[in-house]
């Protein structure tokens, strides 16, 4: 089933898109932290940049003193002084 069809079907059935389309859910807590659900793993990690793989591409987080407080197969909590969160499809 194509992505477009899945999306239309989900919208028609009022299903959550992140579940049906396997999309990441990103919660930004001010400039203090970022919670990413449904990630695909770390791609790059340094103190001021963190790149996380997601289903549709990657998410880059730029900031200072970045720290991965919790990480599991699906969720990740990033703490630090967050400056930019960039989604690349």
């Amino acid at each position, binding site marked *: 089933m194509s992505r477009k069809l899945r999306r239309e079907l989900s919208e028609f059935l009022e299903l959550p898109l992140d579940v049906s389309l396997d999309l990441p859910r990103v919660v930004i807590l001010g400039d203090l932290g970022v919670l990413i659900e449904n990630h695909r793993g770390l791609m790059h990690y340094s*103190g001021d940049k963190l790149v996380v793989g997601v289903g549709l591409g990657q998410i880059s987080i730029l900031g200072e003193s970045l720290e991965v*407080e919790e990480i599991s197969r699906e969720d990740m909590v990033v703490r630090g002084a967050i400056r930019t969160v960039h989604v690349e499809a």
Partner: protein
Amino acid sequence: MRFFTPRRIKDYITGYVRVKIQGKNPERLINLCLSANFPVWDVTVEGQETYFSTSLAKYREIRPLARKARCIPKIVGRTGLPFFVGKIRKRVWFLLAALFMAGVLIYFSGSVWTIVVRGNETLSREKLLNAAAGAGLTPGARKSRVFASEVEYRLLTEYPILSWAYVRFQGTVALIEVVEKARAEPVVLGDIVARTDGLIQSVLVHSGTPHVTPGQTVKKGDVLISGDQEGNPARGARGSVLAQTWYEVYIEVPLTCLVPRRTGDKVEIRLLRINGREIPLMGVKRIFDWYEIEDTTVTSLSVGQTGLTMVNRVFYEVKWEQREISLDEAKNIAESRVRESMEKRLPYSVKLVDWNCQIEVEHNSLVVVRGHFSIIEDIGEIRPW
């Protein structure tokens, strides 16, 4: 890092390690760990090295993953109960000594170290302590063998002057609180006579025969209520007689006064204040005849109920100088002194009816104030037979 989440407590119990990853692709090792269901948290980067925490049990399985990711993991920190137990096992004597000390502490905290007595007025502390010792309460006694109710009973039966006794323990201190019975004042039989001149306002007789009526003027010493001296038994007069009385206050305030003036000479000392008690740290070579004191707190420390303060005290020498004061200033001083004098002479139970002040200036050098006030008070006092 959150230390007290349920997961962290579980990790602490099972033990966890802090791992340093050396290699070109530490992210790959972390991803492989996640795929292998490793619990991973606190991933940080310091310079070229990446650190993370994982459980002790899982770390033992990290070698093949590290080879796959071409990284070298190295343990840099060990935390948790398994490591603590391991350390303790190597230090048996330390553990035994700690246990012994804890045992000693628990044993001695179960004993009475000091006994504090409160509330005794006529009974001496020693007498109460002896009575308490009779019921087993002595310094060094085990608290579990001393029954507070027994000590209280002993105190009350041995000293009937006590109306209440309470024994409790505060840590290693046994606190004995007592209240002594109040003795009734002896009844004085006699007549009630006027303590001062006045105009009678009301007469209330509890016992005896009244000799005055409201509106009547009495002089000091007049009989107000007489008792029954001939009766069997004889009954003294009792009651209250309210009367209006008048008083005068006379205050003089000179238009010149002495004021202190600093000469510029001073002596500085340091002293230690412990619970209000002062201990000079540096000797005072000389003290002036007249001086003013200025204290500044250098440092202050409070340990429990003991307050420790380091104080810098400066003695400034002063000389008294004559200074002229204005008429208004003198009047204000005089009026405030009249008020003070009135307040001192008026007990709480009296009612102020009227008061006024007459201010006069004599020879341009003295302010004279005459304050008149009238009050309603009980003027009766017992004159014994």
